[in-house]
């Protein structure tokens, strides 16, 4: 099994969610993150003092899937999260040894 992690623009979450749902991906976990990369952040001013905020709000999406589905899931997220601007983010996939569903204790592909 694979864990697909995507760091994307917050505004694209809804789009990603819909396209994954449309293609039968049954679940995902989402959390907030801040990203820092070539696209620098923005400047804020408080009583004349300038602050450079290097980190930009991102959303992290994690999807567990079977090995076969991995490529499709990556492709789906990639397309539905793309805006064409800098800072669109990254998607990566890591190997997963074992998955367990807490409610039932099932493991492996059945737990997805």
């Amino acid at each position: 099994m694979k864990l697909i992690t995507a760091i994307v623009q917050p505004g694209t979450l809804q789009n990603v969610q819909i396209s994954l749902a449309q293609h039968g991906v049954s679940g995902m976990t989402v959390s907030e993150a801040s990203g820092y990369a070539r696209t620098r952040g923005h400047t804020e001013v408080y009583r004349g003092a300038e602050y450079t905020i290097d980190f930009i709000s991102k959303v992290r999406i994690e999807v567990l899937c079977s090995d076969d589905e991995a490529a499709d899931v990556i492709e789906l997220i990639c397309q539905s999260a793309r805006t064409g601007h800098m800072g669109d983010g990254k998607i990566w996939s890591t190997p997963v040894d074992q998955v367990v569903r807490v409610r039932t204790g099932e493991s492996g592909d059945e737990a997805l």
Partner: protein
Amino acid sequence: MTILELNAGDTAWVLMSAGLVLLMTPALAFFYGGMVRSKSVLNMMMMSVVSMGIVGVIWVLYGFSMTFGNSWNGIIGNPTEFLGLQGTFDTLIGAEGNQIPLLVFAGFQAAFAIIAVALVSGAVADRMKFGAWVAFAVLWATLVYFPAAHWVFAFDGVVAEKGGFIANQIKAFDFAGGTAIHINAGIAALVLALVIGRRVGFGTKPMRPHNLTLVMLGAGLLWFGWFGFNAGSALGANGLAGMVWINTLAGAAAAMLGWLLVERIRDGHATSLGAASGIVAGLVAITPACAVVSPLGALAVGLLAGVICPLTLGFKVRFGYDDALDVVAVHLVGGLVGTLAVGLFGTQELTGGAAGLFYGGGLEQLGRQALGALAVLIYSGIVSLLIALALKYTIGLRVGTDAEAQGVDLAEHAEQSYDLSRVGYSAYRVAQTLVVPASPLSPITPARNADNVDTKEPVA
């Protein structure tokens, strides 16, 4: 009497005080709201706010009349006398030369009735059905508060010829409502907490205040409003109001310091929640006494409340009642301290006769005070219990455990208090956006309608 005889200065002060007292209920909503967890703050605030709606309406309909209508044996005012407040437009009340319109007094007292009801809600944080609270508010205002306020606040000959028995027969002194409001609401809170039962996780799960800036906002506005509560009860802008104003400052200040000192010694730290609580406890205690003690007496009363109230906080754990926001320790105990303080620190010159124990007046006034407090305590305790039980076994008082775990805001109001996230975790009208899974990998649309690339044309 014609409208020209009124004293505009006194009227201005009571009008303003009415507004100040009304502000105390939203203030209470913030004070209470900040103390609960973020999943029940809206419900907590709504219990106060809806009391403004409910009591605001029934006060106009029959509440004022039940409280200040001509008394039936000192027990209850004639509910038809001022039904709908009709026919009161041109009436003035008060001493010659210091008269104010009856309607201004009715407005001032409306705000008292509202906050008395709202105070009770602190005990049942996190778990009461909103509908049950609405029913409780109507019944409790009608069956408990209006009678008790009648007993204490309705003096013979002021609004109607005959008033309530505590004011006129027992002659207990309760200047601005320590007995009628704080003891009354405090005991009702205890009873309601017992009937509704403990929150899931009480004593084992942490339930710390979710927003102490909101608590402090509530305390600050309560103090501000309380100047109207107390000094407005002089029903005029005069020397008495000035004395009461000073005492309201001194009592709360001393109680805050007292509470912080107890915390520093007992817990090792003086907390901001302690400061806010001390302010409120001091205000509660000085309320009945503010017109009969000197500024030094007010310091003493405040200090007493500031020390005694925090020492009673542990009772709820010892005796196992889940008075979530400590209405008992602050309002019942504080109200008792203040009510009895009249019999201890009252000065002859101010009470006009009956001085307190420490000012050479013996035990007489102390006895009257205790009697008055007891009367309200027992009556309110019993009737509040009956109302709570009646609701429990009819419409039910409490939300389900699932709803309680998820948060009463969501369950009862379908709202969440804060959404500070940059991520919009929701879908607008699900039918529109969340499509049923189709065949795998059917063509998908790129993120063109994402927030930052939407190119929809603005209208016009």
